[in-house]
């Protein structure tokens, strides 16, 4: 079997679909103040953090679940979920990787995440989140030397309380929409990154999320702050075991870029998409928002979305600082019964702000894909510009591809250009490739990779290879 066939074999079983048999500590089922207090208590959080959570919960009680999105889903019973689940051995956090539960290490080994530093392949610092807690962060020492803080959110709340307090909730306030507010109330862990003034982070930072326990929602919270003149590239990957029930994943990610800082955030999302009949899979309802707070700052989102039963997210940029830049590169692939409603929001507030949106959607099987985006140029955002391009590729006529851009231009100095196309792979292209010895599936893989090239180029090297494979594999069985 060559590697490609192996990949296909793996995909057929969703190779990350195993679950690890680890004893868990769980919060009592349901959502109420006591559960929130339980979470806050078990994480030994300061009082202000508990207040932050309770305030969000008060607000949450008043909110109604939104229903304007294209993919509809059966009603979620928020009282029938566990809001905290942690491997038992994490209760007294191990001091080094040697003390880590071998089963956990094995899990990450299966996932291909190099937790043990000696086993490192490419020198990426990883923070791994297992259900509700962060299990290990690698390369800590090397990063600390430069003053970079890269740790779990729980640790940051205790050790870097001032920074967290100053920035948490400034981009996604506790009064935001339904799922973001729910996250503010019950978030369990996530990653925290602080890059000090003038520091260029020497390596890629990465978080790996895994949902293991059943009937759990994963609510992680990530906060990245790039101080003046700094640079960081951050990667995020996700997997989950195969289960018949749908699991909820509602994370919040906040990025803050101060003067002259740049944050590059890349995601390869491969949560379990459900089986070919659409049973099971993850509901990926994530709020990601970046604030270009300072002058000349830049935030760039790159996402490859291949997993999840339903993906519903809009990584956004608020371009507040003058001359700031926001970018969004996305590949979203849906197959079988997957559904996606994704896109971005670019809100131009500062002068000379620029944004660029490149979105590539591919739908196959019975799936449904929607690009939904907002470009809003405020009347004060003089001389701003936006360029949007969204292309869709359809395979078969049981699937759908939709484009819903909202464009608001309130500034006569600014320019907005938007383009969208929808097409299929032409017979001629296929014929050309096949004539030169490729089989139909290889031909489709090649054409699709070409279609996605503009986005794949934006990914860091290590991720690009993985993503390229994923793109090919996700569409397996969709031709012919």
């Amino acid at each position, binding site marked *: 079997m060559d590697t490609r066939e192996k990949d296909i074999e793996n995909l057929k079983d969703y190779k990350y679909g195993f679950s690890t048999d680890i004893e868990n500590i769980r919060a009592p089922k349901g959502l109420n103040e006591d559960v929130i207090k339980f979470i806050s208590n078990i994480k030994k959080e300061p009082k202000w953090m508990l207040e932050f959570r309770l305030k969000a919960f008060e607000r949450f009680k008043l909110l109604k679940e939104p229903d304007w999105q294209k993919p509809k889903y059966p009603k979620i019973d928020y009282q029938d979920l566990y809001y905290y689940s942690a491997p038992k051995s994490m209760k007294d956090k191990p001091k080094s990787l040697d003390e880590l539960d071998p089963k956990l290490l094995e899990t990450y080994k299966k996932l291909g995440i190099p937790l043990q530093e000696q086993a490192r392949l490419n020198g990426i610092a990883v923070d791994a989140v297992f259900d509700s807690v962060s299990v290990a962060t690698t390369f800590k020492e090397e990063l600390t030397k430069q003053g970079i803080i890269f740790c779990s959110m729980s640790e940051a709340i205790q050790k870097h309380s001032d920074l967290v307090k100053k920035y948490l909730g400034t981009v996604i306030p506790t009064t935001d929409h339904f799922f973001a507010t729910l996250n503010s109330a019950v978030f369990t862990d996530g990653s925290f990154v602080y890059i000090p003034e003038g520091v260029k982070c020497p390596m890629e930072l990465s978080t790996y999320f895994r949902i293991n326990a059943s009937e759990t929602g994963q609510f992680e919270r990530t906060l990245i702050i790039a101080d003046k003149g700094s640079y960081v590239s951050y990667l995020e990957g996700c997997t989950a075991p195969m289960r018949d029930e749908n699991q909820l994943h509602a994370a919040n990610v906040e990025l803050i870029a101060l003067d002259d800082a740049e944050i590059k955030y890349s995601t390869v999302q491969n949560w379990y998409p459900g089986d070919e009949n659409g049973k099971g899979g993850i509901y990926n309802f994530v709020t990601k928002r970046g604030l270009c707070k300072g002058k000349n700052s830049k935030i760039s989102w790159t996402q490859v979305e291949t997993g999840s039963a339903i993906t519903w997210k809009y990584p956004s940029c608020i371009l507040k600082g003058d001359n700031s830049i926001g970018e969004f590169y996305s590949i979203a692939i849906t197959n079988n019964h997957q559904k996606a409603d994704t896109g971005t929001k670019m809100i131009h507030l500062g002068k000379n702000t620029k944004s660029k949106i490149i979105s590539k959607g591919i739908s196959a099987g019975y799936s449904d894909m929607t690009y939904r985006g907002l470009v809003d140029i405020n009347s004060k955002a003089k001389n701003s510009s936006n360029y949007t391009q969204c292309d869709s590729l359809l395979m078969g006529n*049981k699937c759908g591809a*939709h484009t819903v851009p*909202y464009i608001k231009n309130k500034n006569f100095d600014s320019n907005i250009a*938007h383009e969208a196309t929808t*097409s299929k792979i032409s017979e001629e292209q296929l014929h050309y490739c096949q004539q030169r010895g490729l089989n139909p599936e290889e031909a489709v893989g090649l054409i699709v990779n070409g279609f996605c090239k503009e986005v794949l180029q934006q990914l860091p090297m290590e991720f690009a290879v993985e993503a390229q494979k994923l793109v090919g594999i996700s569409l397996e069985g969709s031709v012919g």
Partner: protein
Amino acid sequence: MTDQLKIDFEKTIKTSAISDSDAKLKRNFLNKFIANGFPSKKFENWKFLDLNQIIKKNIGELSFYNDYSSPSIINKSIFIDGLEHNRIVFINGRVEKINFDFEDKDKIKIIENSKPESKLENDNALINLNSAFIVKNYKILIKENYHLNKPLIVYHTTNNEIKSKNINLRLEFELEQNSALRLIDFSHDTSENNFINIFYNFDLKKNAILKNYKIDKMQNNNIKYSFNNVNQNENSISETFILSAGSNFLKNEINCNLNGKYSSAFVNGIFTLMNNQQHEVRTTINHLTESTKSFQLIKSVLGKESKSVYQGKIFVDSSAHKTDGYQLSKAILLDETSEFDAKPELEIYADDVKCSHGSASGSLDENSIFYLMSRGLNYKQSKELLINGFLLDVVEKITDVEIKNLIKNTIGLN
């Protein structure tokens, strides 16, 4: 408002000869309208322009009863010169005259009808309002193989006898096989602060051709809503051109159902706005069968404190292979207080299609102005030349030469 609606509704029913069963139907439409009232930005279609707010701000309390017992005098000076035409004249919502002088009387049938029907799949609050209050509506039937010799001009006129009123207009057209109609809607308003609600329904049979030109050029302080529902059969063509410039508020909705093979729809429009004017075009083109085509081009030139909105949707059914759909909206913002919003939408369920849309907005290109000025034009002339060129592009899409010239003269483009 609800009380006023109910009182005026009963009065309308009492003063007109409507059967009990029709009155019951109408009451249903009224209740449907009352349930949500005038649409506000809560509804996706009204997100950019909130009609409820606009009516509250500009008119305040509306009244809905209109006394149509006695005829008004037609002011002939408003008729378009230099173009022989058939005409239908509305004065303050009452049909004063229907005249097909240039046509073969056997080929055109005018049917009077009082039954309220909506024929729309989706519920539309304003059409419900229209159905509740319309007392008499006319259906124009063009018989097989007949091409009208001259265009039909529908004059929508209002005068200062009405104020703070809602008036509802409705016409239905059926174009039988191989027939053709050129229809011009021409607004002439000397009234102020009324809400005018127009609903047209078109049925195009095989090979029928409809050309509809909507001209709203005269400055006035009314708030208008106009809805065209077009059902198209095999090989039929509909062409719609909208000149949106005169009223304080105007929203044109075009809903095209391409039911027959090789049918095609063209929607082109121009906005030229200033001084607090807010106009919108919303189109929905439903490609429901294979080998259908649609094309849309909308351009705006926006002056001080004006706002234009374009919401365009192309829907492609899973059976609609070989669909060709295209949308382009462009805007020039002339002032820092002007605003352009767009929502060009594609909803596609078939793979063998060619669909694309584009939208661009910004200020006049300074380089082009410089180019013209360096060749001897002054700033104002250069600006005008560029704007005219920008708009002329849309006017040139009009396929009827006579009417193209009429519209060029109306806008002052030559």
